[in-house]
């Protein structure tokens, strides 16, 4: 009895532990968006001006996600060029339903071919709340052969009851489908039940007899006549006839009910016209970029020449959705919406050595620092172990009236181990961070 009791206690403990693990799971903070290598995220697509029209929606309530996405000219060699892409979103499963989407205003239900590097595209997606909960949602463009490239994420809460959800559509033949979620399931399920019932009948017809050993013995003894009788053969023939009849009946019923049908559509669209591209009156030469490992600081030294006719002030350095903003530049601060998710706007901001407006024709060497723990949190420091130790990003310069210039920068990046004797080159950012504390 004590042995049994011990076992029971042990069993309950294991069960409780298991339940504790499953129940106490907080919603996952990330869903793989940080797993891609830094060069992948810093030199492929730069998302900016991302908006989420609502952060709390009811079930069936529509909201919208918009963004601009710039495709870097310094696209990494190791991943495929954006020759075939699909406009999508990153969310934990189909918790939102998608009603409309577009790239540069062209419907994006299907894929696009041949996006151009060095170009800004206009992303738009309309969604409705479907599954109640709090979900992290990012804009995303998937690139064939490379994978999904995602922008910044925001928490969007869906309130209400999942059972209220409905996605109604009307076909071109006038049939109204009340809810796409459940459409057709009953009909398919009913036919499956019919087949299962016939199969069950057939199996029972045989399983209700002595099965293995007696039949095996009878067969060995040459008494096949006992095992397969004339009536069985007739039953078999009938089964074939009934099955064939039912198959073509079900086919006929389906196609005669829906005589107008179209096959799956696999068109790949082209972006015929670019949107108006932001100005870029800057000529930039990268000098040297370092990443101070224990200090979590990116330092860039570059030479910038103003080739336009307005003075320009550096306001923001944006890479992999992180926005390092010079808080002393009001034009740049004006671009950070008050409700923009703070995790993407590092506190440290952007420190610029001399940020007086760059006058037309002037050339100046800038020393710029972006210091923040976000480099580690977003796992952007593993370039130390990558095959492609280059970084990239966007610089936003502002005219006095707030007009924004977009400039791509990229170049080699060098690690600096200030606590050099303690850190080996192969250690990851996380380990390095631990050392520096």
């Amino acid at each position, binding site marked *: 009895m004590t042995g049994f009791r011990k076992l029971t206690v042990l069993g309950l403990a294991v069960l409780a532990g298991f339940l504790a693990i499953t129940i106490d799971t907080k919603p996952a903070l990330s869903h793989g968006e940080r797993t891609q290598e830094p060069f992948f995220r810093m030199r492929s697509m730069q998302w900016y001006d991302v908006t989420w029209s609502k952060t709390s929606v009811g079930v069936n309530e529509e909201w919208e996600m918009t963004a601009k996405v710039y495709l870097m000219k310094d696209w990494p060699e190791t991943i495929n060029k954006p020759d075939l892409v699909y406009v999508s979103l990153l969310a934990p499963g189909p918790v939102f339903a998608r009603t409309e989407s577009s790239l540069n205003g062209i419907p994006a239900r299907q894929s696009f071919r041949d996006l151009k590097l060095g170009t800004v595209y206009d992303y738009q997606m309309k969604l409705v709340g479907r599954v109640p909960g709090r979900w992290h949602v990012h804009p995303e463009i998937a690139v064939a052969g490379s994978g999904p490239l995602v922008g910044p994420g925001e928490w969007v809460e869906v309130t209400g009851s999942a059972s209220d959800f409905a996605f109604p559509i009307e076909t071109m033949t006038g049939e109204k489908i009340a809810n796409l979620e459940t459409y057709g399931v009953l009909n398919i399920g009913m036919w499956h039940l019919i087949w299962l019932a016939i*199969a069950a009948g057939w199996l029972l017809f*045989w399983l209700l007899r002595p099965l*293995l050993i007696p039949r095996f013995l009878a067969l060995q003894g040459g008494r096949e006549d006992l095992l397969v009788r004339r009536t*069985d053969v007739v039953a078999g023939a009938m089964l*074939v006839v009934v099955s064939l009849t039912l198959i073509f009946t079900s086919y006929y019923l389906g196609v005669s*009910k829906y005589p107008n*049908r179209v096959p799956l559509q696999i068109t790949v669209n082209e972006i015929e016209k670019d949107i108006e591209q932001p100005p870029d009156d800057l000529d930039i030469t990268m000098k040297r970029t370092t990443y101070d490992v224990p200090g979590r600081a990116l330092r860039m030294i570059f030479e910038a020449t103003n080739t336009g006719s307005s003075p320009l002030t550096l306001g923001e350095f944006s890479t992999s959705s992180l926005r390092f903003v010079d808080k002393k530049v009001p034009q740049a601060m004006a671009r950070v919406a008050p409700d923009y998710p703070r995790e993407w706007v590092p506190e440290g901001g952007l420190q610029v050595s001399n940020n007086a407006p760059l006058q037309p024709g002037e050339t100046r060497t800038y020393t710029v620092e972006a210091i923040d723990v976000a480099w580690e949190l977003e796992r952007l420091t593993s370039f130390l172990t990558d095959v492609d130790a280059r970084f990239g990003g966007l610089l936003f310069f502002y005219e006095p009236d707030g007009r924004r210039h977009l400039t791509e920068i990229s170049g080699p990046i060098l690690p600096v181990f200030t606590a050099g004797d303690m850190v080996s080159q192969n250690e990851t950012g996380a380990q390095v961070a631990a050392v520096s504390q």
Partner: protein
Amino acid sequence: MFNNKEVLEYAGFGKMASRYSMYWDLIVVTAIILLFGSVIPLSVMLMVGDWDFFIDWRDRQFWPLVFPIVTIWYSAALAGIFWENFRLPIGATVGAVLLLLPVWLSRWGTWHLFNNYPMSMVTPTQVISGALILDGCMLVFRHYVFTAIVGGFLYGFTFYFANFGPMAGFFQPVEHQGAIAPVADMVGYAFPRSATPEYIRIVERSTLRTFGDTTVFYTASFAGYVCVLMYLIWWKIGNWFAQATFFPNASWIKSSVGLKD
């Protein structure tokens, strides 16, 4: 209806032996359900994959080709074992049922309840209709080669027709953002899969298309021919695996555990 008594008498089974023989049957049936109920759905998942998972992958070329070709393996192997050893014409049906039931369970549980996929996107495909024809043919012809030629062909050929009818509503045209889409495409679009971009669908990519609107008849016939071949091969494989073979131990192994030769 049955001649159970005769069979048992011939086997020389008394009351007691018959009872234990029935228990043995039950154990074997349970084992077959557990084993094949997991193996068949798993390999269909691996070999057919997205064409089976999603309604917006069920095209007129690859879905009706890949699905019957893969599923006839198990039906043929099981049919071979059951027929050759016990003259039971149920193998194909057993395989088809042990595919459909677990797949419904996983679509409804894993896909729908836990991952929020709407059932309309992930309803399963059935091959029971073809399996019944296979088993029926087995009885009629009493030979696996003829069963393969007639039943195997019908298994592959009828797959599309057996499944398309109930799904036909999914191919009604819908206008969406100024372009045409079947309802199936709309299901795939409305319920986004982050890691399954639209372009990865393999839909009607081959030269069969040049035959025009009759694509489906060519695909179905081709599926039928391949199924004939598959049935023959897998019948043999099934029976090969069902052999009882003894390999004598090497004498040094016996002696190392203290046994005499």
